[in-house]
């Protein structure tokens, strides 16, 4: 994939980070506004696609670190399932930190943890997982296309058997 013109690249420089900010906003306010972990994670993963289209594959592959995205996927999944297990004296997926609406309006929330408890925390966990996973899918699919384009004609590519 070849890099696009300087106009597109400048637009990418200016606007690409706002995608990450907007996606983080959707993820973090998942319990208050429309959206949530899956939608916000998909918005964050759009960032990498935008960079791929604007700057081309070779620049992108020199920038990204796959281990980082893999660790994002693992961390998000483990945090999600760990939060589900932490409600276990009562039941799996019990919301152990949520307070009722009246108590939250009267000022009874736990400081930095949102009054909706594990709903907001699981939103963040799933958002991290989806952002890492979709970015990894974009990277791997682009690598597969490049493998197909650069392999000699008539040979089978993508398999070592």
């Amino acid at each position, binding site marked *: 994939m070849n890099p696009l013109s300087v106009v597109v690249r400048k637009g990418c420089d200016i606007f690409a980070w706002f995608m990450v900010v907007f996606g983080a906003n959707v993820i973090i306010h*998942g*319990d*208050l*506004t*429309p*959206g*949530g*972990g*899956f939608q916000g994670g998909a918005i964050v993963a759009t960032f990498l696609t935008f960079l791929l289209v604007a700057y081309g594959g070779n620049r992108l592959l020199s920038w990204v670190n796959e281990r980082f995205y893999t660790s994002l*996927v693992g961390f998000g*999944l483990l945090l*999600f*399932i760990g939060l*589900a297990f932490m409600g276990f004296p009562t039941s*799996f*997926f019990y*919301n152990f930190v*949520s*307070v*009722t*609406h*009246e108590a*939250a309006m009267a000022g009874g929330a736990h400081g930095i943890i949102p*009054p*909706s*408890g*594990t*709903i*907001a925390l*699981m*939103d963040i966990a*799933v958002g991290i*997982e*989806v952002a890492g*996973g979709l970015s*990894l*899918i974009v990277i*791997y*699919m682009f*690598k*597969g296309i490049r*493998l197909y384009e650069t392999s000699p004609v008539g040979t*089978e*590519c*993508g*398999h*070592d058997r």
Partner: protein
Amino acid sequence: MKKTMFIAAALVLGGIVWGVLDNVHPFGDPLKTPVDDYYIAHALKDRSSENIVTSLVFDYRGFDTIGEAAVLFTALCSVTALFRQGGRRD
């Protein structure tokens, strides 16, 4: 013979579909609503989550969300296996 069987099967299937579609209750008028009413009444009061959909997805129906996360992880694994680098690496 084949054509007769096909026509008979089509008639039977069409009759079933027609009967099912004829019995569908009208839109906006569900048959049983106690669970919906419970969610709408209690999602904000008990969990203080203003987005009822999120409180459904992550609290009342948490097992579904584990399944969705597993679906995404499986898709990632299959893409990794399908598009991996072939050949010998040395």
